[in-house]
Structures are given as C-alpha cells and as structure tokens.
C-alpha cells in the first residue's frame, strides 16, 4: 500500500561507518539489526514476535501446500463424483466449495503458495534493481543521478495500484500472465522506494573520510561501491523489504481481483477467488470470501507487524530507553540528618538527575 512510510535513516551518530576488521564486512550493517532486535522489549518485541509467528505460519503453509490441502487447486471432482457447486461447509469440504465447484480449503492453501512466490520474486527483483540504481546514482551523481531521480519521482507519484495495473497490462501482453509477470508488475511499484533510501545513504556515505581515503589510494569505483558503500546502505533495506512483502500480497490480490494478475488456470490466487466470491456475498454465501480473506489478512498482518516492529527497534526517534525507577528513601517523621542518610539522599538525587538527562537526551534524538 501502499506507499509505506520510509524509515528515517538509522542512528545519525554512527552512520556512515567504515567496515571494521572481520569476515562479514559487506553485511556488517545487518549485524547491528540483529543486536537491536535482541534488545527489543515491550510493544516492539510483541509486534516482532507476533509478526514472525504469523509470517512463519504463512510461509510454512505455502511451502507445504500439497501436504496440507486435501485436493489440488483446480480439482472439481473426486472419485468420479463432481463436488457440489457453492456447497456450504460440511465434513467433506470444511470451508465449502466455490461457484466453480472447487474446494475452498485447497484454493486458500494453494493461494498462499502463489502469494509467497510472487512476493519473494517481487521483493528480490525490486531490491536488486533499486539498490543497484540507488548506489550508482548516489555514488556517481551527475546527469545519471538527475535522470534517475526524475524517473523515480515520477514513478513514485503514480497511484501504486494504477502503476501495477498498467505494468501488468503491458507485461501480460508481452509474456502472458504468470507468476513472473505478476511479480514484475509489482516490482515496478517498489523500485523507487529502495532507490530513494539507498541513494540518500549512498550520498552521505560517499562524503565519509574512509571512502575518500579508499579513493585516494586508487580504489576503483566498483570496489568502493561493493566494499564501502554497500554495507552502509544495506541497513535500511530490511524494514522496507518486509513492508513491501506485506504490500506485494495486497497488490497481487488487487491485480487478480481486477482480472489482470495470474491466469486462474495457472494457480490459485486469493484476489481472483475474492472477485468470484463477490456475487456469492450478494446471495448471502459467506464461505467463499471469508476464508481467502482471513488467509490474506494473516499473511499481510504478519509481515506488517514484522516491519513495524523492526522500524520501532531501529528507528532512533521512536526508540525509548528504559528508565529505571529511582528508589527514594522512606520519609521518616523526624528527619535526623546523619552522615548515612545524607549519602543515600545524594545518591538518589544523582540517579534522578541521570534519569532526567536520559529523557532529555531522547528528546534531542527525536528532533
């Protein structure tokens, strides 16, 4: 959806950083994410865990679809007996059957598989293209940068679904409707998001001293980009990636709903199923639309929560330091100031000051 709000750049105090010694230099930035995730607590922790569990549920369903689903996604008969048309849920078909006599359980489960395939492809495509273009534009600047920025801004201004629709319309007439076509039409929508973030961090990293040093020593642009810029820009990618994954599921369903996504004969797809279910809703049949809807909400919710949680954990303006409670000495009726009580009071006071300072510091960071 949607255009996800872009996360603010990570801690300004630390970025950009020169790669330190150690093996995983290139993905060093990602390690900081792992550390931040481990330190999560409270609501972000809850969101991260719920998101992870829901996403895992979705991914496992998608992978093991043939084992879970009782029938194939396009099976309309079993043992020579055709399934009932628009049959209500019963023992044979737990979630009922559709207008095409297809089993809703199987459609829903196989729909997860299609969604996962398209989602992974779309995120990988847009990640590769967006990060690459962003790095090139940010590092080299000049006319290449200016043209790319203009094109990306234009793409970004487009209503996202409209862009996907137009892209789907174009790609479908070239390659026909399939998983890759759907993924490509969704990719077009997300490239600008990666491009913007990566370009911005590449721009700031380019000016860093260690990059200048590398260039002074005669490092080629390709080396500088691979070794020094990549690790710095990659940190902002996981948040956008998870958000886009959530989004891609919705966009794919939107395309399928409009009849522009995956051909119904190729695979089960939630959007297409919902489109067929709308007329059932008018006739009071709830099962054909309820189950694909629930599946879709679980999948999108999982990745959204994951992305929100990551954003909370990584975004310094939203991070909140835990403030430890300051234990004040109990008030006695008659305050006898001995050397001992004076000392405790002083400690408590300094702790209180420290706590206020922490809050103030956080306020500073927020600005």
């Amino acid at each position, binding site marked *: *959806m*949607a*255009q996800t*709000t872009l996360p603010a750049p990570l801690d300004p105090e630390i970025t950009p950083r020169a790669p330190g010694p150690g093996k995983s230099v290139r993905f060093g930035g990602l390690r900081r994410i792992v550390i931040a995730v481990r330190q999560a607590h*409270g*609501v972000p922790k809850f*969101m991260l865990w719920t998101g992870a569990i829901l996403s895992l549920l979705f991914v496992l369903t998608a992978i093991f679809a043939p084992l879970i689903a009782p029938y194939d996604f396009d099976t309309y008969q079993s043992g020579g007996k055709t399934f009932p048309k628009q049959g209500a849920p019963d023992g044979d078909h737990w979630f009922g059957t559709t207008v095409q006599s297809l089993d809703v359980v199987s459609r829903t489960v196989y729909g997860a598989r299609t969604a996962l395939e398209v989602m992974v492809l779309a995120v990988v495509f847009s990640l590769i293209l967006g990060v690459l273009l962003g790095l090139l534009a940010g590092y080299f600047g000049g006319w290449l940068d200016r043209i790319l920025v*203009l*094109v990306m*801004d*234009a*793409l970004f*201004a*487009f*209503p*996202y*679904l*409209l862009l996907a*629709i*137009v*892209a789907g*319309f*174009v790609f479908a*007439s*070239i390659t026909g409707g399939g998983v890759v076509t759907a993924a490509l039409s969704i990719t077009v929508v997300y490239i600008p998001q990666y491009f913007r973030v990566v370009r911005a961090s590449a721009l700031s990293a380019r000016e860093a001293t260690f990059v200048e040093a590398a260039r002074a020593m005669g490092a080629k642009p390709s080396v500088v980009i691979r070794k020094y810029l990549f690790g710095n820009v990659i940190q902002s990618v996981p948040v956008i990636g998870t958000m886009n994954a*959530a989004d891609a599921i*919705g966009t794919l*369903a*939107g395309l399928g*709903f*409009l*009849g*522009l996504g995956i051909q119904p004969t190729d695979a089960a797809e939630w*959007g297409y199923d*919902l*489109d067929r*279910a*709308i007329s059932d*809703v*008018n006739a*009071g049949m*709830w099962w054909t*639309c*309820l189950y694909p*809807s629930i599946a*879709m*909400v679980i999948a*999108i*919710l999982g990745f*959204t*929560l994951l992305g*929100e949680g990551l954003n909370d954990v990584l975004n310094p*303006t*939203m991070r*909140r330091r835990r403030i430890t409670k300051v234990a004040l000495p109990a008030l006695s009726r008659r305050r006898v100031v001995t050397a001992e009580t004076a000392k405790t009071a002083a400690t408590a006071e300094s702790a209180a000051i420290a706590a206020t300072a922490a809050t103030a510091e*956080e*306020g500073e960071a*927020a*600005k």
Partner: protein
Amino acid sequence: MSKQSGSLRRYILTRIALAIPMVLILLVLVFVLMRVAPGDPISASQGGKLNAAELAARRHAAGFDAPMYQQFWDYLKSVVTLNFGTTFSDHRQVRDIIIENGGATLTLTFGALVFASVIGIPVGLLAGRLRDSTIDVAGRLFGILSYAVPVIVAAPMLMLAFGATSGQASPLVQLNVPTQTHILIVDAMIVGDWDAVGDIANHLVLPSIALGLLIVGVFIRMIRINLIQSLQGDYIEAARARGVKETAVVGRHAFRNAMVPVITVLGLQVAMLLSGAVLTERIFTWPGIGRQLIDYINQRDYVAVQGIVTVFALVVVVISMLIDFINALIDPRVRY
C-alpha cells in the same frame, strides 16, 4: 507584509517550474509504457474480425502508423488541450469520461477521507498523548490491522456484516435528478430532493468505510508520531512550567503543531485513495472513473487507458503541489 507575499509568490513559481519536468517525465513514461506492449489497439480489438487491408486502413485513419515522434506530439497536444484523446471502443473524449464519472469518484474519496479523519484523528491524538498506555497499544494495533486489511477484503466483509444491498450503488442511476455538476449528491441538494440525498448518503456509507480503512491506519500513525514529537518540544516544557493546564498544553500547543505535517500526509494519501477507489468502485459497482478504467482495460482500449492514467497522474502531481502551497502559507519556514 509585501516582502512576505513576495517570498510566497516566488516559492509558488519555483514549485510550479519544478513540477514541469516532472509532468513531462510522467507523460513520457505513460506514453512509452503504452507503446511497449506489442500490437496496437485496433489489431487487439478488431484482429479477428477484419482482413489485413481493412486493418491497415483503420490503423492509418487512427494515426497508428504515424512515426513515434508524431504520435507523441499528438499525445502532448491532447494533454495540453485537456482533451486526453478519443477512445476507440465508443468514440468518447476522455475529458467527457472524467467529467461525467469524476463526480462519483470524488464523492467516494471524500467520504473515505471523512471516515478516516473522524476515526483517525481522535485515536491518533489519544494514542500519542497516552503513549505506551493500553489505549496507545490498542490504537496502534488497530492502525496496523486496518492497514493489513485490503479493500477487497474489507468490502465483502462489510457487505456480509451489514447486508449486501446496502452497499450497492447501481440503483443510484435510477434516481431522477437533473445533472448539473455531475456530482449526484450535490445535484440532488441543488434540486432540494432530500430523499435522494439520503438515499445516496446511505449508499455511500459502506464504500467510504471500505476505502477509508485503507488510510485510517496511516492517519493514526502519523498523528501519533507527530504529537509525540511536538510534546517533546521545548515550548511544551515552557508551557507546563508556566502552569498552563494539561488540556490546553495538549490541545492548543501540541495539537496545532502536530497537525501541520498531517496536511502533507493527507495529500500523499490521495494517490493511495485513487488506487483503492478503482477496487472499491468495482466491488460496489460505483459509477466512477476507476470502473471505467477497468472496463477500457478489458476492451484493450489503449487510448482510453492512456488518457485516464494521465489524468490520474496529473491529479496526484497537482494535489501534491497544492499541499506544498498550503504548507508554505501556514509555515513561513518552508518558503526559504
């Protein structure tokens, strides 16, 4: 005063000048995308029905064998004259489609904005003020949930819950209201037909909620974050130190500053609303531009698709420009 208005005028002129290359790129993009697809609208729609010579004649008549630059020039001319080309399938001007169906889309998006504001602003403010409380967590989770429920899920669920027919817009067409503004509800008001107004409003509720749910999450999130950040401002501390009542601190000092960025967010949501409107209109058979677009796509009418997409893109650009103007008007810092 004169100096101030001078800077505002300069800002507006610069902003318009900056928008021109953007619009040009958009137009090139739409044009190229439409030409990348193999074949042309005539072969696509008439391919089986006509023989080769007739096809060629038709293509010539429609100007599809003209060189690319000529076609692009014609396209540019159609945009500049705000006419956006003539459709193939039913020989309508895209401008007429926009005028006749735009009212319905406008009504729908406005309804969605109203719903999102009514729910989103109070929830966002409460969540931001009572940060980390139960209300905050519940509000945020509601925001995330509403974000995770796409229009095509929300709409059938609402129809199931509240009765399918209450959302159907098709009976609207039978309303006997003379057309003046092409916005049905306004037309009905002008005539004073309050039964019709009630009927339209009734039909508008479910589509507006379905579409509004798409953006209410963004509203909650943005208002919450902005309120939290403005509550951390020095002037809030100063107000509290002066002994200003808490309600006045939040209501007067923090709220106003928190609302300025919300205007920007509102503007950015227009692109999203237009996308959602395409789906909503199809589900509720709402007679707007989005439904026309899908019909033309299914008929492979490239000119109509190109024209409607261009209009949508221009609307988004113009609105983001207007938002910038409003921001510059409210906040003088923006102008420099």
